């Protein structure tokens, strides 16, 4: 990584989310759930570097492909 590299950004497609809640279980620092059990993204913009692994874990466990990392294919 260079000093110029950008931080990681996470995107949540609420149309695709069906509330499996894998993200909330695996990365509660990044995802909350609303009263209907649908995911809510907690972090806007770059996420803290120490949460990048958790973000990847959430992506890799969402059955509906609702979570992506900006610039990466799911």
């Amino acid at each position, binding site marked *: 990584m260079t000093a110029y590299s950008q931080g990681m950004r996470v995107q949540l497609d609420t149309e695709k989310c*069906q*509330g*499996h*809640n*894998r993200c*909330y*279980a*695996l990365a509660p620092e990044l995802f909350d*759930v*609303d*009263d*209907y*059990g649908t995911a809510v993204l907690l972090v806007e913009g770059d996420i803290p570097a120490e949460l990048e692994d958790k973000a990847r*874990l959430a992506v*890799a*466990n*969402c*059955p*509906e*492909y609702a979570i992506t990392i900006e610039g990466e294919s799911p």
Partner: protein
Amino acid sequence: MTSIYGPVTDWATDFDHVDPEYNPNAHQIWDDLRENGCPVASSERYGGLWAPLTHEYVREVAYDTENFTSRGVIVSTARPIAEAPIGPAPPITSDPPFHQIARKLLLPPFAPKQIDPWEPEIRTLCRGLLDDMGDITPGESIIDAAVQYAQNIPVNVIARMLGFPTTDDEIFRGFVHDIVENVNVDPEEREAAIGPLDAYLDIQIEEHRANPRDDLTTYLMNVEIDGNKLSHEHVRGSIVLLLIAGIDTTWSAIGSSLWHLATHPDDLERLVKEPELMTFAIEEFLRAYAPVTMARLVAKDNDFHGCPMKENQWVLLPFPAANRDPEFFDDASEVHLDRAENRHAAFGLGIHRCLGSNLARLELRVAVEEFIGRFPAFALDGPVTWSNGQIRGPRKLPVRITALA
């Protein structure tokens, strides 16, 4: 009640998931079919049946609510009488746009923050079941982990949530059995199975009308769509659904997970030593031993990858087969307790995602934790009996306990 169909002659063209040979051998059957270039098995039974077996095809059917209707989700010789989009047991039997309305009503009581507080009560229930097994002598005592343990957990939990007498659990299990297992009998015999359940629920609903309380039944009786309360039939249908959807399924998931541990001593030892693996292990059990195969009816004639599907034929949604598709998962037929990438479809895909998934996961995790917490070593000892039909799990699971905590 006996099947009106004989034994399967060929799994590719005479497929029958209710054949007693199916569930015990399902993993092999899917692998053989896929390897022999048959991604969609078929059958003339039940008035026409298709069974897509790859993750891609299962996903495609699950997402396509135009060509496939949920009006019927349990394959049987009969066709459901109630019409789409509502169907007999909303939301599972509903199609868009009504589906979303019926589903939204049920989502709040099953959201994680409503379900998590049940954990201590589920734990107490599991410990009570373990206590009821009496004195265990390591190396000698054999218990039935399906009959004495797994089967009692979901039925008790849902009865408590609904506010029904927990002493009626035998009755619920009988109803569920009649509905989900006796599907290959005469249509009339099948319709007759539903009557007693409706009558039982009418009494429970009446009782709640007289004594409303803080439980799911009262919630369903009070909740409103556009300012109107639900009809009696809608309330009753939703309860039928919760009983049917929540009991055999979770019982099977707990049973299959314990079956795995009883037949894989290394995994059992590892899970006992590394409890932090539990979150991943539970998902891996759900993937490898997904208990639920759903179904759809073909809504309009369509060509599905070369299969001429006709209106009113059945299409199975074998999420368990999708979960073992080697095209989608690395090492699909191996259980890896620490599998980090796991987009399994045990709870379905798309708009009908299991409404009870948060509850089911909680019950499964607590049940496994408490069992291995009490019995850190155990092994299969005797013949296993598997269920019949769309819900797959062990119904008899004799294990010899070899160590106590």
